[in-house]
Every structure is written in C-alpha cells, then in structure tokens.
C-alpha cells in the first residue's frame, strides 16, 4: 500500500496547479455568470498537454493513468468545476475507444483527441432512459458497410462542441441491453443535431446538450466492439470514469474549504476572528476529515483502474458516492461559514455549492452507486 504519488505525477500536478491559479481561477466567476463554454481554457489545456493525459504515449498522449487524470481534474475543479469537465469528459468520451477499440481505431481516433484538436463526448442517456440505460431506444440499422442511427440523447456534456461523439444504440429488435453497440461519430462525416442546451443549477460553463440523430450514417469501421457488447462497455467505461467524478467533487470541496478557512481567520466578530470559536473549529475539523477520507477513496479507486483490479466496480462506485456526498455537505457548510457573504455571488462558495450538486447525480446517481455497491457486496 502506497500513499505517495510518483515524481512524474507530482510534476504534472504542480504544472496544472500553477496554470489553474494563473489562468483558470481568475476566469471562474465569469464563466459561471456568462454560462458560456470557455473555449480559451480548452485551448490552454490543449496547448499544455492536459488533454493528452487520458491517453498513453503510443496514441499521442502523455499518460493514460487514471491517477494522473484524477489529479488533473481535482486541481482544475478546485478553481472551476466547469473547466474540470474539459479534462474529465475528454477522458470519458475517449475511454470507450481505449477500452474497446481495435489498434487501428485507437491509432486513428485518439491522436486528435490527445492533441486537443477535437473534443470528445459520451452519449448514453436518453429522455426515457437514465439510470435504466438498458432501456434506450436509439437505433442503429446496418446497411452494407455502414450503420444509420436514429434517436435522441439527453444530458450530453459537451455534445454541442464535441468533434467526436461515442453513441450507444440498439442494433437489433430485442430492445434490451443485449442489443446495444457503441459507435464513434465524427462530426464532419456523421453530423448530429443539437436540439437544445440546458439551463442548469451549476457547472454552467459546461454545455449540456440534447442531441438528435436523424439518419446519421456511421461507417461500420467506427463500431467499437461487437454488436451487443455496448452495454458492458458502457458500464466498464463508467467504472473508469467514476473516480474522475469523485476527483471533481474532491476538488470542488477543497476549493470551497480553502476559501472558507481563510475567511474564518480574517473575519472578526465579537472582537475576535471567528476561527477562534470552537463551534467554527469543530466544523473545520469535520470538513477537513471528510475531505481527507474522500481523497483516499478517490485515489484508491484510480489506482485500481490503473491496476485493472477485480473489485474496481465497487471501489469506483464508493469513491464517487462518498466524494460527491461529501462535496455537497462540505460546500453547504462552507457557505454557512461565510454567512450572508457565502450566499452572494461576489464570493465563490455559492457557485461551488451549486456545482457540487451535479456530482451526486451524473455518471450514475448516488442511488445507482448504492445499487452497484450493494450488488457487489451481496454477490
């Protein structure tokens, strides 16, 4: 058991930390208020190799390690949860290719993603198929060497800006999870329609799209794995991406706590800094302890992704569940620590509290995480 990062990981983290401090943190409030996707931050990440983190070197990347991805997401999320999704969803949208792609597919599809020339996205949910992913109705019909896709995908992070979209669809008539396959859509050759962009409680700088597929043609060469193997792949991808959401939640909580900790030391009431009151101190101790506990679960899960550990599914769900519930509680407490100032948008903690909420919902609601964990325990 090791509780230390490698020198290389620490170097990557420090680089990201500095970049985030200098370039992302000053933009965070504005990104939230405008609700616009920060193209400049995407470019910054691309130029600095951050979008190459999810990919091994042979596919144009710099790492491919889940631990490193999580470190990156955590660092970015400390300042701006919306911007952290630029890395997190690049990883999520690429995992299907890295997990199920042939060597040819990986060589062809990954380098532009690793270089940040294209944004990746992942389209599993539908209006009538959320937690019950097997109930999807998007269809992929085969005609010769290509498939034709029809259907609607819901809540697709970066669906509007992606150049590469992994879509899950039914390939046969059984309409359950056994008929699902995964396809890589490239925007130029297989264009999809963005039906609408959602207005959201948080992560406002990260576009969430409803996507409509109307007779979209996809070459059979872009099918990932076999017909019928898509559902398994979707779950395998979520096992790998959930530690990343845990890392995002962790970063949000840490960002809020760092701000609140500094605030209570400065803020004076009754003639003394409010940090000198034991009621406040106990809140600080509980927050810090919960963050620390979540951090270990997140990086334990990431380590298990990299090691392809057999109990990965359970630990990844635990990390996502614990870290996101923690982030919701901690950001709420941080708003409380700032009192009235915590509630207004001149201070960052209200944004962080709004941003935290989604981490309990997406990539499998925390109710689904509990189902996954209980199933693993009771097997």
């Amino acid at each position: 058991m090791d509780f230390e990062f490698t020198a290389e990981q620490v170097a990557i983290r420090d680089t990201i930390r500095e970049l985030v401090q200098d370039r992302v943190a000053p933009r965070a409030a504005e990104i939230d208020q405008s609700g616009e996707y920060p193209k400049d931050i995407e470019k910054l990440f691309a130029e600095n190799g951050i979008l190459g983190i999810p990919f091994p070197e042979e596919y144009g990347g710099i790492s491919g390690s889940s631990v490193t991805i999580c470190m990156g997401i955590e660092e970015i999320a400390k300042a701006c949860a919306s911007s952290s999704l630029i890395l997190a969803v690049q990883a999520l949208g690429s995992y299907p290719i890295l997990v199920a792609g042939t060597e040819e597919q990986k060589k062809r599809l990954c380098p532009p993603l690793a270089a940040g020339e294209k944004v990746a996205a992942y389209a599993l949910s539908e209006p009538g198929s959320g937690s019950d992913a097997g109930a999807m109705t998007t269809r992929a019909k085969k005609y010769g060497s290509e498939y034709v896709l029809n259907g609607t995908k819901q809540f697709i992070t970066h669906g509007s800006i992606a150049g590469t979209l992994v879509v899950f669809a039914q390939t046969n008539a059984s309409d359950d999870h056994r008929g699902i396959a995964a396809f890589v859509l490239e925007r130029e050759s297989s264009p999809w329609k963005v039906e609408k962009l959602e207005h959201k409680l948080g992560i406002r700088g990260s576009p969430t799209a409803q996507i409509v597929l109307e007779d979209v043609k996809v070459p059979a060469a872009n099918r990932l794995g076999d017909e019928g193997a898509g559902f398994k792949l979707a779950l395998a991808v979520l096992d790998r991406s959930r530690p990343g959401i845990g890392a995002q939640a962790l970063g949000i909580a840490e960002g809020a706590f760092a701000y609140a900790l500094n605030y209570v030391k400065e803020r004076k009431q009754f003639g003394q800094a409010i940090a000198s009151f034991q009621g406040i101190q106990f809140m600080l101790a509980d927050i810090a302890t919960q963050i620390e506990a979540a951090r270990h679960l997140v990086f334990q899960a990431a380590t298990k992704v990299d090691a392809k550990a057999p109990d990965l599914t359970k630990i990844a769900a635990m990390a996502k569940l614990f870290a996101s519930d923690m982030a919701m509680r901690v950001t709420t407490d941080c708003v409380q620590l700032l009192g009235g100032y915590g509630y207004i948008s001149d201070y960052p903690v209200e944004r962080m509290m709004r941003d935290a909420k989604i981490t309990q919902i997406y990539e499998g609601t925390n109710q689904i995480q509990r189902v996954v964990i209980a199933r693993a325990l009771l097997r």
Partner: protein
Amino acid sequence: MRELAQGVVLPLAAEVDRDHRFPDEAVRAAAEAGLMGVLIPREYGGAGLGALAFAICIEELAQACASTAVIVDVHTSVGTEPILLFGSEEQKMRWLPRLASGELLGAFALTEPASGSDAASLTTTARRNGDGYVLNGTKVFITNIGRAGMYVVFARTGPEDKAAGITAFLVPGDTSGVRVGQVFDKMGLHGSPTGELVLEDVSVPEANRLGAEGQGFTVAMRALDSGRIGISGQALGIAQAAVDEARGLMLERGHEQGDDFALADMATRVESARLLAYQAAWLCSRGRPFTRQASMAKLHSTDTAMQVALDALQIAGDGGARAGSPFERHVRDAKALQIYEGSNQVQRIVIARDLLKAG
C-alpha cells in the same frame, strides 16, 4: 493473524462480554503469536513491525472481539511505545523483552478524576526523595487495570502549572502502595477491565523515570498519537464485523433496496475510514508528521464504527437487539471508542489547531 482472531478470539467474544471476564486465553494466544511485541524491535524480543502492521493486527482482533483488541492495543501502543520512544538503553533492555513476550502487560495512567481532556491539569504528585520519587494520587479509566504488570504513570514533579511540570514513570503493578481502586461496570468492552489506579506513597527509583523531568506531557501526547492509530484499527474491526454480519443476515433472510442502500453506505464509510487510518499509520512508520492524520483517522473511524454498528443493528431488527447478539455488542463496544484516547471533541480541537496553524 486472521486465523488467531477467528479461531481463538472470536469463539470467546460473546462469553467474555456476557460474563465480564478477562479473555485470558485470547491474550495468551496473542502473546504466543508475537502480537504483544509487534512494534518492539527484534533486538528486544519483538517482531519489529511498523504502525501499519500494528493497525491491521488490532483491526483483525477487533473484528473478532473488541475487548481483546483494546487490551492488546493499550499494551502495545500507549503501554509500551513510550519506552520505545523515550526510554534509555538500560530501560529498554529491562522492560521491553518482558513486554514483548506478554509476560508483562502494559498500561497507561494519564487520566484523573478531574483531569480528562485537559490532561495538563493532572494533580498526581511525584516528590523527590533521595535517589527516587514518591508518587501520590489517583488515576482513573485505566485500561488493563489490575492485570497490568507495568503502568506508565504521569505525575507532577515540578511546581510549574500545566504541561511543563509533568514527568512519566514506569511503575510495576506490584510496587508497594499501588492499589486497584474501583473497577467499573461499563456499557461495553466488558472483557477489558477499566478502573482506578490508586498511588499511596509509592516509591519509584530514578531508574524508572522515563525521559527527563518535565518531559512527561510530550511523552503522553506522542504516545497518544500512535495510540490513535490503534484505536482506529479497533474501530475498523468493529465496523467491518458489523458490515459482515449484516451482510450475512441479509443473504440469509432476503433483502430489499432500503437495506441494500444502508449496507452500501456502511461499507463505503468503512472503506474511507480504513484508508485514512492506514495512511496515518503509513506516515507514522516513515517518521513523518502524522498528528493531524492520526486524529482524523481516530475521529472518522470511531464515528464510522458507531454509525455502522447502529445501522447494522437496525438491519438486524429485534433479534439484533437481544442480549448476546453480536449486533448489540458492537453498538455498546463502539461507543467507548468515540470517548477514549482523546474524545472526538478533542480530536476536532487537535485537527482544527493544526489547520489554523498551517495557514
């Protein structure tokens, strides 16, 4: 380790709890397995293992019997480690081999009736008398009371108020004037005797002073830091036992989603607490600062053990609440952990102080 815990310690657990009796067989078996000297270097007859191995040993024991775990834990950490950390070579040679073999059981006597969380206010005195000291006072809530062959006793040598006047002494249990006062009936941990240690004109030679005069508070705090790793291990063991037993019951009688979700939350909390405790142990064994992490581990793992034990009892329902059921025993045992080795309120003070200092 698991074999010992499951094979020898577990079968005794219910009886030890019911009859409030010291688990002699379990402690003897632990000694034979080398557990009493797990942290003691090989040259003094121990196993020479680190804090992580220690935490795992206590966790395994507590999964079987929390009473046995705390007996071994107190002996191994706060009852022995002060000698390891602050003893002279002569003191190590004299005490450690017998502590390592289990011939002597160690104990830690810091708390007094009027001095609990505020340890620096203790009033037991150690007066200089020729070559040695004479100790007078009453210590309370002493684990391994009456069973210990050696107590690490903290007493005031100087006129200085508070921490600066405290000194640590090694006091054999059979020294004249050392008496066991009241032994308490407790909610849980029935196999582990807890009570008063009365010191009446107890003569202690200078050779039994541990560290310098006035260094006692430092000795106590450092011992408690690693003691907290042991208590975290104990908490993990109780919590894991509660999870496993709830799981077994659910598999046996069937289960609905409400209980499934509770079980998922329980297991997730235990996993997070385990990683926190192991990290504190990992830092400790590398000689790095670990005070904050040990307090976080103690706080989180004991709060987790309490919550998980209650949740498991809730899953078990009526049958779990019946005397003799492991579910109700875990609840009673877990409660002590939130209180001793620094109450969880004190842990929060330690953590907050460190956070506010760090800037």
